[in-house]
């Protein structure tokens, strides 16, 4: 930022004038909005199941309560068999978030392990792991998930989590590998290696802390993927249909023709919940992105000179140094990936 200040039109807006805002206030607006929205849903997921007005599976036999529009007794109306939609929604948010969170944690951990291992070991290990990552990145996950879950006799929550995790790591692994390759060659890592630090200590205390924002972004993305995939799977019917998740709610609404019956209160709330959780995660991710790359930030902080927007200063080019140390065989294998096209470009710019 300092590089921009001298030519800035308004030098009055110097940082010391601000009353040192807290960490939260310095976050990009998108990240704040995303975190708040997500917080609401997490809270609903934690508290919701404890305060559900009815048992979500309870089928009220009274004919007047079948497909009842929302009123004070049933805030979101009832389903065809007289179940309370609000209760289902609260329990469903809990189950869906729980699943997505577990998948996110485990798959991101796998991504970190694979990515860091590939970058650190180098040689044949790197080639094999990178090839594996790229292959699973291209193979479409959903049909494979359906085949896998189709063969598993027990289609419970555990099976879904297992299979989603198994296919959820490649994206993160690829990004983290690239970043690790970049950091690995920097001076502070070389320094700690010279002082005789063990490899695991370098990884845990020098490399990983420098990748926190990347790991966070990877986690958010994985959670997003897990929600989308699990809801889609349940909608097709490849899930434990006796439990209440946002996906199974949509499955029942669709299979019992909520749309044709005009019961919007039945299929809109679960879908809207999925969409809002998704929006929160996308906003959060964009915010994280902006933290790492100041150029993408809202133009409120850019100054306008003679009709042209002046972007904030260049971010530290960390990722651009990604692919430099590479063995012979690794070079061949890397050249198979499409990202190899970008390397030369970036390398040329960085020098």
């Amino acid at each position, binding site marked *: 930022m300092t590089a921009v200040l001298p030519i800035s039109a308004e030098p009055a807006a110097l940082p010391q004038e601000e009353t040192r805002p807290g960490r939260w206030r310095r976050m990009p607006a998108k990240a704040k909005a995303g975190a708040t929205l997500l917080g609401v849903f997490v809270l609903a997921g934690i508290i919701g199941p404890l305060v559900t007005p009815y048992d979500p599976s309870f089928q009220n036999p009274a004919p007047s309560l079948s497909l009842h529009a929302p009123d004070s007794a049933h805030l979101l109306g009832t389903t065809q068999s007289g179940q309370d939609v609000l209760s289902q929604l609260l329990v469903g948010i809990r189950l869906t978030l729980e699943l997505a969170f577990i998948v996110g944690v485990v798959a991101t951990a796998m991504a970190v392990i694979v990515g860091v291992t590939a970058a650190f070991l180098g040689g044949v290990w790197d080639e094999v792991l990178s090839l594996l990552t790229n292959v699973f990145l291209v193979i479409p996950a959903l049909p494979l998930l359906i085949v896998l879950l189709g*063969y598993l006799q027990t289609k419970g929550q555990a099976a879904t989590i297992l299979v989603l995790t198994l296919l959820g790591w490649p994206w993160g692994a690829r990004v983290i590998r690239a970043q690790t390759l970049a950091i690995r060659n920097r001076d502070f890592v070389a320094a700690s290696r010279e002082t005789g630090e063990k490899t695991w200590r370098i990884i845990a205390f020098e490399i990983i802390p420098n990748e926190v924002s990347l790991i966070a972004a990877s986690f958010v993305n994985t959670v997003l993927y897990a929600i989308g995939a699990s809801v889609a799977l349940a909608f097709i*019917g490849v899930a434990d249909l006796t439990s209440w998740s946002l996906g199974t709610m949509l499955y029942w609404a*669709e299979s019992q023709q909520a*749309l044709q019956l005009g019961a919007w209160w039945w299929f809109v709330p679960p879908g809207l919940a999925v*969409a809002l959780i998704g929006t929160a995660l996308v906003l959060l991710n964009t915010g994280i992105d902006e933290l790492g790359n100041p150029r993408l930030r809202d133009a409120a902080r850019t100054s306008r000179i003679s009709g042209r927007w002046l972007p904030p200063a260049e971010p530290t080019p960390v990722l651009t140094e990604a692919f430099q140390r590479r063995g012979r065989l690794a*070079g061949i294998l890397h050249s198979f990936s*499409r990202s190899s*096209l970008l390397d030369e470009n970036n390398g040329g710019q960085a020098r």
Partner: protein
Amino acid sequence: MPFILRRLVFYLVTAWVALTINFFIPRAMPGNAVQSIMSKFPNLQPAAYRALEALLGVGHPGSIWSQYTSYLDDIFHFNFGTDVSQYPASVSSLLGQTLPWTVTLVGTATVIAFLIGTGLGILAGWRHGGSLDRVLPGLMFLQAIPYFFFALILLELFASKFHVFPLGQGYAQGLIPGWHWDFISSAVYHSLLPALTIVLTSIAGWMLTMRNVMITTVGEDYVIAAQAKGLPNRRVIYTYAARNALLPQLQGFGLAVGFVVQGALVMEIVFSYPGIGLLLLNAVSSNDYPLMQAIFLVITFAVLLANLIVDVIVVFADPRARTREATL
């Protein structure tokens, strides 16, 4: 080794991995799939039973290696076996009926979404902080909606409430598919709402990535130099900035196609669109494992092919891909 050849080798490896996974899934999973199929379809012929056993590796069909080679041989001859849920029909004929629907719909809609999204992204990136940036959160919301749910909403609005579009299916009932005007116009009419779903939900993704690359590109020295020379804005935007920003966007296209296809599969179910997604649903609900596996393979190959096509375009768009030799 030219760029395109390297990519071809990579896709062949990927296709082989997918084939191999597909081969081992039924053999590694617990339970007896043939038994569960037979219990659902008790009047299958003994020949079909034996074919299933061979396909899923149950009983004593020989060593794993001989099973594997005969499996690969079958796949190379597009022989996916006989279908169990729609008995005498072969799996490949079912795929042949449904695949054109999905490819036409998803292909056209994706290209349209890509063009519109990229165009908007160019403008948003150029006028960073302008009015287009303000609609971004709204577009993110559209992007976060599951395809099938958005399809439900559109159906409710435009088909149930206002009767502008039909309530699903691929063409009007009573028409015989063929190359005549009645059928084609009906098919196009029926595909408008599904296509709109894909376009509206995927536009934000293209726009966001293009905007971000564009913002970075606009800050490059050569763009500033072009402006300093006094070139008209149009020329700076399209010939200098957008042209270079487009390359990463194209490279992301391949991966994104996979996501669009997956979303579209589930969306087809909502529209009862006679494509491969509906076939997949039927396969799932009747435990038709051979069909599920064949669909997995076909979708994977389609995505790989789409990637290959994108690579060919990249070769044309990016001179580096043409001139550079592999880094050996």
